[in-house]
């Protein structure tokens, strides 16, 4: 019984995905919806095969701009999060600014970035960065700020210095928060880079979709959407895996490494 449930849980996402595509296919061919309005999965697949080379090239471009922006977001977000979480003064000073900044739609920055850096890769990286660093800051800061004073006292009672407390309890304690934020940040980073590519680039999946839609090649547009979705899921799962391995203690995982 228990084994059955666990295989069912493993299979469930695949089954649901397949089911949705099947329904989609049936609806499109049953109602005879033309491809230029809503392409059926089979048409999208065919288009994916036909344009395999260009899709691959543009996907790689999007992947690396996204990862570059994300990496930047992780580094900056972590440092800022440590500063904000460790010092009440920095916290008070930065929070309104951060929240205000995060409320601005990041598309609004793209024209500015284009003026500064021209169209292409750099605005895409920076948009990915701008949109994804906020959750990292907030999570790292929350992890530090919610550190139990009792655990801190254990270190303090040994005469530990502030940085020792940070290294021995603050950072390990906020790691689960940090990894949780990575999963959110990586998907947001895709949003950022694709937005920028659609507006201001001649490379990347965003650009590919833009040019495909202007020539009414809807199957290709959808192929692009699906490629983005797949990349997002794969990256998300990668970070979820890293999270489980490195912070198993927070999830009471008996297989946590020592």
């Amino acid at each position: 019984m228990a084994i059955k449930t666990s295989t069912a849980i493993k299979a469930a996402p695949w089954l649901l995905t397949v089911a949705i595509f099947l329904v989609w296919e049936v609806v499109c061919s049953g109602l005879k919806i033309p491809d230029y309005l809503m392409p059926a999965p089979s048409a999208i697949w065919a288009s994916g095969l036909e344009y395999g080379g260009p899709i691959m090239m543009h996907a790689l471009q999007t992947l690396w701009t996204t990862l570059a922006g994300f990496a930047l977001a992780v580094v900056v977000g972590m440092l800022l999060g440590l500063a904000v979480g460790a010092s009440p003064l920095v916290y008070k000073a930065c929070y309104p600014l951060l929240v205000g900044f995060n409320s601005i739609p990041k598309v609004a920055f793209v024209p500015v970035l284009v003026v500064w850096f021209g169209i292409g890769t750099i605005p895409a990286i920076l948009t990915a960065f701008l949109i994804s660093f906020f959750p990292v800051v907030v999570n790292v800061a929350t992890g530090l700020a919610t550190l139990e004073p009792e655990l801190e006292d254990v270190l303090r009672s040994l005469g530990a210095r502030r940085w020792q407390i940070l290294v021995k309890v603050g950072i390990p304690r906020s790691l689960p928060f940090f990894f949780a934020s990575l999963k959110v940040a990586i998907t947001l980073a895709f949003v950022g880079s694709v937005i920028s590519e659609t507006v201001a680039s001649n490379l990347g999946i965003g650009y590919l979709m833009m040019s495909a839609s202007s020539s009414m090649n809807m199957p290709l547009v959808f192929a692009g959407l699906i490629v983005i979705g797949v990349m997002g899921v794969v990256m998300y799962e990668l970070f979820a895996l890293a999270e489980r391995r490195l912070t198993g203690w927070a999830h009471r995982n008996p297989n946590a490494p020592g």
Partner: protein
Amino acid sequence: MSFVKFESVSLAYAPGGANAIEEVSLDIREGEFVAVVGPSGCGKSTLMKLVSGLKPPSNGYVFVDGREVGGPLKIVGMAFQAANLLPWRNTLDNVMLPLEIVEPFRSNLKKEKAQYTADAEALLARVGLAGYGSKFPWELSGGMQQRASICRALIHQPRLLMLDEPFGALDAFTREELWCMLRDLWQEKPFTVILVTHDLREAVFLADTVYVMSKRPGRILVRKEIDLPRPRPLDVTYTDSFAAYVHELRDHIGRIRES
């Protein structure tokens, strides 16, 4: 010369609020074994925080080793009322935590890693946790966590050991075993101990001096020296003089509760 000295110390957690402890004065010699008893909420844990420098007094002065306490001390080993083990470290790494902070262990840690690990494992074995070093805190029972936290307080051989109800979650047999372990450690190489407990037999068996505290706000009501000869075998707990001490302390506590 006193090793720990309180001069009419008061502490209020909220500035201007009610005192948790009030006008506490005491003197503890180096190497003395002190037990503190008193009703729940009277400020025993607060007293510990003051000695270790985790909290500054609102009034009065706290001296340890001849110097006024201005912040957390480095010569202290402390087992808190809750075990407070770090959940991301296994038991052995939790026990060895002080060695990563306190000198000279910190500098020697790389060189002496094998020796230190062996010491930590020996200590774990002494409290009945042999073989549990690789377990994580949540895989231990409450009493086992408490015992691990006692090991963490002892590993760096502190000159001042502070134990806040360390045996509270243990059964009577394990508790008596650990009394004897603590007695032997202390007898081998005397260090100063402040032990908070609710168990009067524990206080009389282990301590040179027992302090009785009043209800909140906590004051020191009685200072009682326990003149039982050392080394004390566990059998001493069945003697008349032992029972007399326990009775006397019981009377004091009873009176506090009625008042």
